[in-house]
């Protein structure tokens, strides 16, 4: 009803239930795939007696294992966070778009596009984020070596970039107020960096140059962040400014208000108070710490410039200091990053620490090899030709001659699969998890119209009806008499609109217009009919003005009907429409409803049609809901 606020809450029960149902369905598929893979693998091993793959000569270095397992766990954790019930409705409006709000317009355009895309198919998008991230996590953990392991790294890079650009608005690097303290340059960028390191070929694993490069790059990063933190005029040097919170105080204070366990909120609030009182000292400490850590890490790269290497203890001390600083920041400033019901990851400090520690471990690859556990079998795709993995240790499968005939391939594949390790089976399963999440989203994206679940979330489900529609004869926008009987043979989508309404009615008209477009060729069997719902402004001049405003004049099957007040009141009564004159200054309060009348004049469906927040996705969703109701009635006519 116009005059009533109607938005879509984050915890909308319909959306939450649909999200849970989608996760449950996809979870069942994931388990089924696992079961099928397991049965197939066990069967292949038992019946085909394949040759077991040879074990590789060298183990995975410690730095890579740390990155792979560390980021694998983080991806799984992020995936579980994405399963929080508020994600479908809340992520675009509460996370994605606000993140970009202070960035330049072009960033906002990019991010808002993603937010709109998400909001058109909130269930599929939310579920996709869950399964893709869990899949990548499992993939990374399960694949220690070989091409599948490197592909896992690349998957991490690819999805990390998607999250960084669309979810984190490029980590806020184009926004004012950029600071390491709050996670610049975005946690997902470290996921990408880690993924890229994991994807490196084995020949790059065992040289300390890699460790030096990683630590030098991180040293540069810390030094840059120190300069940024020290830069005057950004509000970090003051705890309070003219009685208002300084930049850091405000940031920390806002984190303290996030719903979370009381003890954490207390810590963060206490630190906000401390920052307000000692803003200069806190920032000075941050600048010095960042600069010192930056210098320490940069020193690891000295040998690359022909200078003597710093003592290892110096690097180790720097890394320990960095971990301490990151932990303090993570707890007191970033507030763990994942509370509040819409937290998508534990923010940047843990990933950042993992990358730096990996860089440190890579400085000493020899020790990593020496302390490595029992060598793991290579995780290679079962049917990869030998030349693709030429740089990898040879395996029995890879040694198969390429000249095998094509009809030998299934048996060869089956034998190779049977000969694969448990890890290979889990990696294949992990890739399948990613596909289970991504495929429905990709299919949904192929449809440019929003899912009808949004309309149902706003107004509930359509009510089936079965009674003769009340007759009426009114005047259309062209001055012609139109009766309901004259529309027999067509499905009629009927609604009631106030021509001078300022919010709902224009939206509903656009949703009818959208339904006409979605119907396509079927629209010739459908008549879109609106009847005036204003007892004061109901002249032809006003229906025409409304049509011009809403560009309905170009919709051939659109009728906007009016009549005398007595005629209108009779129709309103027959269709249970309230049209109440509000006190001075208010518009007419009238029912927002749509009826679907079949070709024989029977009312088949009633749709509550309060158009909600009027976003592009909700309007599109209502159009789709109307279309589906019309098509269903057409089929049953």
């Amino acid at each position, binding site marked *: 009803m*116009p*005059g*009533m*606020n109607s938005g879509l809450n984050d915890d909308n029960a319909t959306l939450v239930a649909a999200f849970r149902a989608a996760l449950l369905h996809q979870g069942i598929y994931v388990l089924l795939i696992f079961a099928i893979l397991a049965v197939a693998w066990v069967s292949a091993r038992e019946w085909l007696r394949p040759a077991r793959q040879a074990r590789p000569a060298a183990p995975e270095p410690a730095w890579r294992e740390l990155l792979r397992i560390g980021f694998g766990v983080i991806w799984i954790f992020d995936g579980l966070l994405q399963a929080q019930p508020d994600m479908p409705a809340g992520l675009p409006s509460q996370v994605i778009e606000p993140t970009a709000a202070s960035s330049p317009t072009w960033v906002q355009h990019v991010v808002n596009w993603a937010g709109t895309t998400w909001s058109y198919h909130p269930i599929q998008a939310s579920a996709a984020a869950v399964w893709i991230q869990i899949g990548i996590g499992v993939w990374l953990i399960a694949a220690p070596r070989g091409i599948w392991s490197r592909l896992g790294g690349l998957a991490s890079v690819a999805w990390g970039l998607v999250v960084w650009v669309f979810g984190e608005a490029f980590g806020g690097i184009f926004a004012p107020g950029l600071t390491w303290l709050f996670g610049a340059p975005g946690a997902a960028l470290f996921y990408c960096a880690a993924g890229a390191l994991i994807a490196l070929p084995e020949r790059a694993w065992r040289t300390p140059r890699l460790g030096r490069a990683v630590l030098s790059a991180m040293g540069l990063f810390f030094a840059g962040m120190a300069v940024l933190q020290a830069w005057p005029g950004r509000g970090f040097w003051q705890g309070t400014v003219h009685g208002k919170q300084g930049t850091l105080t405000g940031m920390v204070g806002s984190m303290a208000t996030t719903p979370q366990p009381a003890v954490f909120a207390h810590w963060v609030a206490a630190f906000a108070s401390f920052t307000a009182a000692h803003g200069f000292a806190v920032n000075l400490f941050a600048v010095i710490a960042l600069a010192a850590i930056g210098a320490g890490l940069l020193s690891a790269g000295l040998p690359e410039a022909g200078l003597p290497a710093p003592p290892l203890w110096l690097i180790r001390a720097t890394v320990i200091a960095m971990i301490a600083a990151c932990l303090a920041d993570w707890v007191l400033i970033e507030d763990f990053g994942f509370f509040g019901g819409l937290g998508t990851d534990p923010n940047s400090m843990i990933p950042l620490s993992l990358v730096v520690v990996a860089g440190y471990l890579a400085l000493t690859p020899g020790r990593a090899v020496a302390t490595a556990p029992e060598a793991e079998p290579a995780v290679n795709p079962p049917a990869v030709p030998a030349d693709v993995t030429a740089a990898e240790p040879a395996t029995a499968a890879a040694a198969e001659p390429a000249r095998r005939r094509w009809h030998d391939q299934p048996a060869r594949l089956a034998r190779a699969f049977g000969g694969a390790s448990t890890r290979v089976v889990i990696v294949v399963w992990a890739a399948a998890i990613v596909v289970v999440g991504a495929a429905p989203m990709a299919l949904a994206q192929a449809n440019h119209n929003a899912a009808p679940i949004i309309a149902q979330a706003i107004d509930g489900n359509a009510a089936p009806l079965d009674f003769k529609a009340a007759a009426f004869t009114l005047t259309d926008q062209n001055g012609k008499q139109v009766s309901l009987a004259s529309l027999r043979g067509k499905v009629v989508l009927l609604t009631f609109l106030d021509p*001078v*309404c*300022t*919010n709902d009615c*224009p*939206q509903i008209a656009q949703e009818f217009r959208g339904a006409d477009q979605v119907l396509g060729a079927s629209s010739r069997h459908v008549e879109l009919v609106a009847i005036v719902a*204003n*007892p*004061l*402004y109901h*002249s032809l*001049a*006003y229906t025409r*003005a409304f049509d*011009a*405003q809403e560009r309905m004049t170009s919709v051939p099957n659109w009728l906007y009907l009016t009549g005398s007040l007595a005629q209108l009141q009779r129709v309103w009564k027959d269709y249970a429409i309230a049209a109440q*004159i*509000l*006190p*001075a*200054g*208010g*518009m*007419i*309060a009238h029912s927002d409803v749509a009826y679907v009348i079949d070709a024989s004049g029977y009312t088949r469906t009633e749709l509550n049609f309060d158009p909600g927040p*009027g976003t592009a996705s909700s309007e599109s969703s209502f159009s789709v809901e109307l279309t589906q109701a019309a098509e269903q009635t057409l089929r049953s006519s």
Partner: protein
Amino acid sequence: MSGIRRLAAPAVGALLAAGAIAGCGSTPAPSAAPRAAPPPPPLATSVASTAGPSWTVVEMGGSAAQENNFWQLFVRPAGATAWRLATPLGVADNGGLVIASAGSGSLVTGFRPSQLLTYSPLAASTDDGTSWSPAGPLSASLADAPDALAAGPDGALIALTDGGARAELGQRLGAAWTRLSSASALAATSAGRACGVTGLTAAAFSGGTTMLGAACGRPGVAGIFVRSGGTWRAAGPALPAALGREDVDVLALTTAGTGLEALLQAEAGAHSSLIAAWSSGASWTLSAPLPTGGRPLRSTAAGPGAAVGVILGDGRGETLSGPGAAWHALPALPKWTATLALGPAARVDALAADGGTFKDWQLGAAGWSLAQTVHVNIPYGSSS
């Protein structure tokens, strides 16, 4: 090859740096852009004639950002002492009300569109706002200016639309509309070129002729135009030499008896002043300039005998009793005063609006005294 690489990196860096510096340093020279007209005065206003009723429009309710502001129209019929609510029903008026008096208890009210409404519904009353009939509609958005709508004889209307870019002429209370002029068309006439028209700001009927007020881009010119013989000619007053370097805008244009009353704002830099101008047909009388303190006007009022009242940006109230009179400063206005109302016998009222309460403070020898309180049922939340 490695030597080339060593050279190439700094070279590329230098080029990028040079490009960045060039980009930073190449600020374009300022161009001679036309002067932006100052914002029009708010729609809060009042209109009164010697023998007819007094009308006033004030903004009531709550936050405009939350669509909880509701403009209300009040009338004080001729001979009456109390105001009553007369807002036409059936249309959300969060965008504002613009009124045009046609004399003898007749009024046309235009609703400025808000939210998704893009055209302006109209309503007309001939019985002091007791009953209303839908008029129009105006297919475009009524401009945000107190004199954007003018009512003339036989149901003729002038409406400024699209932010003052166009003027439409309506017949039969807006049942049919034709283009009267536009800012660009007026600017192309010889009279318009002399003014350097930048936008249309007010409309009026005077003696059956159509008149338009404009903001002028050329200093020292008052942009008042009359349509005569199918062409527009300048009708504005010649301004004194002291205003020769100041840009002048017509803020209000009101029929006063058989003549015309205009309120002009002259500004040069941070300095601005108001000048009232009265035309008896053949000549103009100008008031002394009233410095405004450089802040936008809050309200205008037109009263019987060509009286003028204004509330300045700093909250001061000033009145002029008619042609040739001097500006008269009012005592400090009561809290929440939205506009002044000038009545017969030099009566001055301060009309205050706060939430759903409308108060009429009357000026007497002892200062302001509360004459009336009207509680209005505000339809909070109905437009959101």
